[in-house]
């Protein structure tokens, strides 16, 4: 009897430790926010180019995360990408004419939406649409523009040197 009690205790401790480890991995390592659930309001914004933005990406103001990207879809009425963001309920004083821009965290980091406050007295509420947006910068476009302008410059120089 005594031995079975010891076995049960050992097994119980083992199972407890195992589940504690699983719980730790799920809650502490991932960026899941439990309890936030559906709390918050949704605003949308249309972008010419969302680049590598993904659902779940942070929405931040001055670097403080205030919400997450919920959905990205293509809007045929405007021929733009329509991004739905869920903003935490605490941040209900964002001016209506604020602008949303897509930035990249670090050189190789993920993309996020940064919101710059506007000057309006009315604030964003559930279902509002943000008018002022700035698209993601696509690195390839930037590089190709740079290269083309260099090539054009060099072409002009070359033409002058060899008559």
């Amino acid at each position, binding site marked *: 009897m005594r031995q079975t009690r010891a076995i*049960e205790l050992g*097994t119980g401790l*083992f199972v407890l430790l195992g*589940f504690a*480890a699983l719980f730790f*991995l799920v809650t502490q*390592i*991932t*960026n899941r926010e439990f309890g936030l659930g559906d709390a918050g309001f949704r605003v949308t914004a249309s972008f010419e180019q969302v680049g590598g933005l993904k659902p779940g990406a942070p929405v931040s103001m001055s670097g403080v995360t205030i919400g997450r990207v919920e959905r990205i879809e293509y809007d045929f009425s405007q021929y733009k990408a329509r991004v739905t963001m869920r903003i935490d309920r605490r941040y209900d004083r964002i001016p209506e004419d604020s602008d949303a821009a897509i930035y990249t965290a670090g050189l190789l980091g993920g993309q996020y939406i940064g919101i710059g406050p506007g000057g309006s007295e009315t604030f964003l509420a559930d279902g509002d649409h943000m008018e002022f947006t700035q698209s993601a910068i696509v690195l390839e476009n930037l590089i190709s523009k740079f290269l083309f302008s260099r090539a054009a410059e060099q072409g002009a120089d070359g033409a002058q040197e060899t008559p």
Partner: protein
Amino acid sequence: MPALLRELGVSMHGAVTALGAYALFAARLLAGTPRALLRPRLVIEQVHNAGALSLVIVMLSGLFVGMVLGLQGFDLLERFGSEESLGTAAALGLLKELGPVITALLFAGRAGTALASELGLMRATDQIAAMEMMAVDPVRRVVLPRFLGGVISMPLLAAVFSMIGLFGAQLVGVQLMGVDQGQFWSQMRATVELGDVMEGVVKSCVFGVACSLVAVYEGFHSAPTAEGVGRATTRTVVISSVLVLLLDYLLTAALL
């Protein structure tokens, strides 16, 4: 040439027969599972044998694997100037690959061999035949609790391995190599997703079923001699290890 072909045919025949025997045995275990779970005492005892007794070796291995990961990861990432990503690298490596795979290999070595040799010895000393004589189904009474004990233990062991490994990586990366602790954890949290954790859990569950099945099958079907028990134990480790690595590739391809 015809002799060679015949050889090939015979060995193919043997392989297909063995596969069929495994499948039938697995079906038999599956059919008995609900009834075995109604009497959990035997299963609890086996969770103790397969899981709780493997805990020390799994934790120790996890710690050292994590520490090596911290060291190697730091060396690699430092060359790209992004040593803050060490947390992400260690967490993804441990959760998705090293945790399930190394735990399964250790599990096959520690618990699988114990199961196989125990069952093989029962077979060799006619205990299994005695049960059949007493109209006790040895599969339900002896094999099934051991199988279920292994299946339950494996994901828990893998989770413990990953967690300890992460602390090992943190120990080396943060305390020894000087990665910023906040960066270590926050980068990890920002990048690792629930799906990554789930991938590891799914893998460890599948490995648990595979390793336990191989161990109980080989033990139960061993030749009733001292040599047979030895061979069953060896086969358990060899088959389990190869199977785990093969399944790992397939699962990774499927889950990625």
